């Protein structure tokens, strides 16, 4: 009896310690990145760092604007493609399609979501980059193909399974009686979708989009492989960009050899961390709130 109690204590202790450890991860990440960013924050003010557009680590100039804007542009392009496609497809799968198509689609979504970022990158290099070159040729522009648009398209394809999955769940969670109520007063399917389902699922749909955007913001390898990585403020879809994650990933090798460079890159990671946690947190809150509402 006594031994059983001791074992129980030990195991419970291990469990609690594990939980404590896990809960410390976000705090540790935040704190670690802040500490690492302090050296550069001491020298350059926040507005200078975020708003400056000159990036010359060797002469101590660290302006993050090109990277932040590139990130925003690539994410925006991907969202403009993935958002409507996902919403339409989620509507089709849950409202119009046969159950067989939906159950066929589920593994397709799972597989697409599971394919590693780097494989999407290979596909982007082999398929999307040549495609974008063609597209530019139509408008009589000669380009390398490694540009914002390529990055945005690859990113869109990557976010589709992720967003679609959440959207399907959101729409399926809407009580079927709402649909019945709308149909029974003589609304067509489309009217029911437009006036009732989209409204009832509004917060969930917004949350799905928010999660998709925050995932796109942090995506690294696939984008890095097709986006061009030139430090500039891109002026068109066919110009190369240099998103934040790509900046961090590309320069880890040199960052220890140039003063303040490591601090600057860790500051970049901190920006990403803060923005994504905020986005994610808000989206999750919206989803949880939606569930409670029902």
């Amino acid at each position, binding site marked *: 009896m006594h031994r059983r*109690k001791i*074992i*129980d204590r030990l*195991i*419970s202790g*291990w*469990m609690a310690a594990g*939980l404590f450890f*896990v809960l410390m*991860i*976000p705090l540790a*990440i935040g704190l*670690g*990145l802040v500490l690492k960013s302090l050296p550069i924050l001491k020298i350059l003010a926040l507005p200078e760092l975020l708003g400056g557009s000159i990036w010359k680590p060797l002469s101590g100039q660290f302006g993050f604007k090109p990277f932040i804007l590139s990130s925003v542009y690539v994410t925006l392009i991907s969202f403009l493609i993935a958002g*409507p496609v996902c919403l*339409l*497809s989620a509507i*089709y799968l849950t409202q*119009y*399609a046969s159950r067989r*198509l939906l159950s066929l*689609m589920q*593994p397709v979504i*799972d*597989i697409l979501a*599971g*394919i*590693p*970022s*780097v*494989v*999407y*990158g*290979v*596909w982007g290099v*082999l*398929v999307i980059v040549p495609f974008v070159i063609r597209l530019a040729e139509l408008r009589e522009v000669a380009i390398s193909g490694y540009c914002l648009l390529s990055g945005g398209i690859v990113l869109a*394809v990557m976010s*589709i399974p992720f967003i679609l999955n959440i959207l399907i769940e959101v729409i399926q969670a809407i009580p079927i009686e709402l649909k019945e109520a709308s149909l029974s007063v003589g609304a067509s*399917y*489309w*009217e029911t979708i437009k006036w009732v389902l989209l409204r009832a699922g509004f917060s969930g749909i917004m949350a799905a989009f928010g*999660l998709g955007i*925050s995932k796109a913001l*942090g*995506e*690294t*390898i696939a984008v890095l*492989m097709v986006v061009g990585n030139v430090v500039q403020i891109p002026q068109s879809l066919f110009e190369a960009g240099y998103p934040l994650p790509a900046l*961090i*990933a590309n320069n*880890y090798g040199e960052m220890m050899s140039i003063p303040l460079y490591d601090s600057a890159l*860790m500051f970049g*990671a901190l920006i*990403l*961390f803060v923005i*994504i*946690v905020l986005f*994610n947190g808000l989206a*999750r809150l919206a989803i949880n709130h939606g569930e409670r509402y029902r």
Partner: protein
Amino acid sequence: MRRKNIEERIFKSLAAAATYLIIAVLLFLIVVILKNGLRALDWGMLTKVPQGGFYFGEEGGILNAIVGSFYLALGATFLAFIIGLPVALYMNIHLLRQRFWLNRIRFLLDVLWGVPSIVYGAFGFTLMLLLGLRASLLAGILTVTLLIVPIMIRSMDEVLQTIPRGLLESAYALGSTRSEVAIKVYIRQALPGVITALLLSFGRGIGDAAAVLFTAGYTDYIPTSLNQPTATLPLAIFFQLSSPIPAVRERAYASAVVLTVIILIVSLAARLLSAKYREHVIK
């Protein structure tokens, strides 16, 4: 009435088109990866390490990356499991009545799940310097562990939540301690779900590039200890694809096929298991 019908038709066809577009893109993606990869794939590719450097050597294969990836992903999955399982159990047994805290913990884990791997990579790098480690298998394992722990916990948590409370109460009634309940009742009940969680985490771990970029290094050889750097499949693809030498790029395509096939097997297995699991759950 006419206009209403036309509007419905248009949107219905658009919606159908979006769906079939997604299916087409998946097929296209797999076909492209397979076509390029299978051409490059032969027995030597799978059983040899690269000769003369992974970036310049024209001979040899990707065994270093395959083995390295398995070491790394298995190590990280194991670590994440011995942290994650107890946490998931703790949440569903000890904290069962603390709804307030449970909601907050789940929220935090969900947010952690969304943190991009590049941030884990940067953090892992910082941690590595702090602990005085070099870029190595160990540092890679630790970083990937951090990355997959939230996934592990949340997917096991989802399964454990489905276990009826009555089971817990009847086990208490028989005089079991909480950890006996955890081990004898919960783990057994949720076993298929736990294995699914393991598979998912393994899949995420083996496919991630950004987290190991800083921490695992890269090498032509198969690591023989935890302190040595290791090659991984995602980085094998990433580094070798940018090579000017066609034979090296072939290795990247081959790595992409191997990685994709591993992911396909893992996600199919997870799917089959969870489908089987659902059959046994009585609502």
